[in-house]
């Protein structure tokens, strides 16, 4: 083929441009660690990567949900333990208040029970952060409010919350509820914490009755009515404590699952979009050598061209 003078230059410029753009691409990949930066690099790969990122975002959100719920469940567990302690003490008093106790003793018990009612109301009105633990979903309102008579005795405790519980998502289509309504006397729905007709639980009213019976010295009523009633309350509390344990354990598992999923998604993402740095560096050094060779060979040829003039 006949070679014109401009052929050398054009060919050299094209080759150097090509090699430069290869080098630039490799250098970008090495410095970002990514094979894909823009949609044009690998459209299908980018779509896969975006999908993986969405899944990773979901996993992280579930992990955050779980963390929020764990705080609530732990606070609720603490409150439940305190209520159990009160319930245990009430049971002890009911047992001790038999025919052998003196009237003074019984009045002392009555006062103690009155104090315990107020303490129980306080515990039942515990908050986690901004919201009340035992109001159902009416968590901006304190669940229990007590009425006190002129003598300082609690005469009634009423429930201000609702019986609705919040469904919280901790995994794909998997929800959990951490809320416990303080009382549920409707006969259906979630089990009330301190009052539920279906299980004979009515803690505050039973305590108030106990206080009245102790104050009036009616030990027969204490033995026949109050003690069995308080046993039902205790059973109810035990159920809720156990349930709280189950909820916490489910939350722990969900946290671990979310963490594992995030790790495996990150690995998948690296596989799709990451660059093999060793390979890229090897390719880059090869390109560099080719580039230098192109420059060297072209400079030799340009010198040859000059020499035509010298000969003639």
């Amino acid at each position, binding site marked *: 083929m*006949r*070679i*014109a*003078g*401009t*052929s050398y230059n*054009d*060919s050299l410029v094209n080759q150097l441009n090509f090699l430069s753009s290869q080098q630039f691409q490799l250098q970008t990949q090495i410095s*970002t660690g*990514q094979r*894909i*930066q*823009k*949609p*044009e*690099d*690998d*459209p299908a790969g*980018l*779509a896969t*990567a*975006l*999908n993986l*990122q*969405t899944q*990773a*975002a*979901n*996993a*992280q*959100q*579930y*992990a*955050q*949900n779980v963390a*929020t*719920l764990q705080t609530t469940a732990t606070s609720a567990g603490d409150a439940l333990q305190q209520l159990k302690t009160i319930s245990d003490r009430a049971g002890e008093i009911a047992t001790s208040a038999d025919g052998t106790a003196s009237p003074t003793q019984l009045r002392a018990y009555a006062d103690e029970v009155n104090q315990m009612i107020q303490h129980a109301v306080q515990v039942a009105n515990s908050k986690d*952060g*901004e*919201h009340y633990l035992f*109001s*159902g*979903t*009416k*968590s*901006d309102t304190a669940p229990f409010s007590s009425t006190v008579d002129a003598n300082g005795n609690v005469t009634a405790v009423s429930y201000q919350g*609702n019986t*609705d519980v*919040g*469904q*919280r*998502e901790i995994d*794909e289509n998997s929800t959990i509820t951490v809320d416990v309504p303080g009382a549920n006397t409707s006969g259906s729905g979630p089990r009330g914490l301190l009052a539920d007709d279906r299980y004979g639980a009515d803690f505050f009213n039973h305590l108030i009755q106990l206080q009245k019976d102790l104050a009036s010295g009616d030990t027969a009523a204490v033995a026949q009515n109050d003690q069995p009633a308080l046993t039902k309350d205790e059973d109810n509390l035990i159920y809720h404590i156990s349930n709280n344990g189950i909820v916490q354990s489910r939350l722990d598992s969900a946290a671990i699952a979310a963490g594992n999923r*995030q790790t495996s998604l*990150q690995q998948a*993402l690296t596989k799709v979009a990451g660059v093999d740095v060793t390979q890229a560096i090897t390719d880059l050094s090869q390109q560099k050598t080719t580039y230098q060779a192109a420059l060297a060979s072209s400079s030799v040829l340009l010198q040859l*061209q000059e020499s*035509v*003039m010298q000969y*003639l």
Partner: protein
Amino acid sequence: MQAQQAAVTVTGQNLANANNPAYARQRVNFQTSDPVPLVGGIQGTGVQLASIQQIRDSLLDNQITDEASVGGFWTASQSSLQNAETELGQFLNQAAAGTDGTSSSSSGTGAQGMAAQIDGLFAAFQSVATDPTSLPARQALVSQAQSLAGSFNQVASRLSAVNGNLNSSIRTDVDSANKLLSDISNLNNEIARTEAATGSTANDLRDLRQQKLESLALLTNVQTSTAADGTLTLSIGGVAMVSGAKLNDTLQAYDPGSGQLLIRAATAGTALNVTGGSIGGAIDTRDGALAGLRTGLDSLASQLITQVNSAYSAGYDLKGNTGADFFTGTNAASIGVTSGLADDPAQVQAAGVVGAAGNGAVALSVARLAKQSNASLNNETFGDAYSQVVTDLGNALSNANDQVANHQAVTSMLAQQRDSVSGVSLEEEMTNLMTFQKAYQASAQIISTVNLMLQSLIAMKSG
């Protein structure tokens, strides 16, 4: 001697244009002069310059012209698609990772592109659903929604600007093309006159016309044919623009009513389907990939507004109000968040029943929209529909990149072939120069020899 002198001049012309890519080398053709009959036989009278011939391969020229149209098309397409890709702003950035090692898509800061912001919107609804009484969670939701709406607005506006730029470039290219058409018809005129008058080919004018033709081919696809008188007939889209020395018609960019410019013949008024060159590339990209991108984003925004509002408006806020919308607007350019939510996040309607502040059922149902397929979005989720929009753009641009690379390879091959035929080789010209110089010297030697002989003859008489 004169013949050799002319040959040296042509060699000088070749050398001067050695670096002119549009120049085709010229060659002298010698011819023996008419012989005269003499006593004793027919005697030659020397040499004359028969013609100065241009070494050009017209087939290669046509191929290069066609390839220029292809190149113009794909280069224009590539650059406008790259613009669109940049304005869309969806890149992959794994360097901005969260503390738990996940990529940046889920963290509030450093989120890249709308894919992460769409994920973030539904994640924020999840946070509110998990802790509905938390005001910070509500604030984060409103903020995330405002970021997403802002991104939609910005991208829509930027892509609209890209569209406007394409229309401007079409106008500019039409003006340039018309100027070239006028130049070519003028050159036709001069070539016809020169060749009729002198009877030889007007090499340099033809080179210039070919150069103009190739510049025109970069702008639009052309069909050409050469007439017997040396003029070039040029048609675009079937309408003859230049025939003979006459400029029949020019190009005109017009608005058929949609705001998107099309091309028609200015005088004849027929619509022209331009399928090559940068004009063709701009129209094809504007009405193809770019239109698809803008429509896709509008559909996505519109569905997002409709679906979210539909679920959200049934919810109750912390004050017991209901019925308000979350998003305002109808498409990507107009999507916004209901004003008032930013200042008073208690107005976010998260609850499913009234008077239950801890109920997050509506927030949860909105969050679950993320996984729902939408019939109006090809049965894809919001995230997947967006991903599809990005992939379509990526494919179009990747294809344009490949086409441009192919075109560059073909062009450089054709250019090499043309150089091989028409390019000036310094070695060849220098060698020719030597040859013509020697021939000139030889002819001059004849004259001085004849001169000496004549002097001897005259000396004979005077002696």
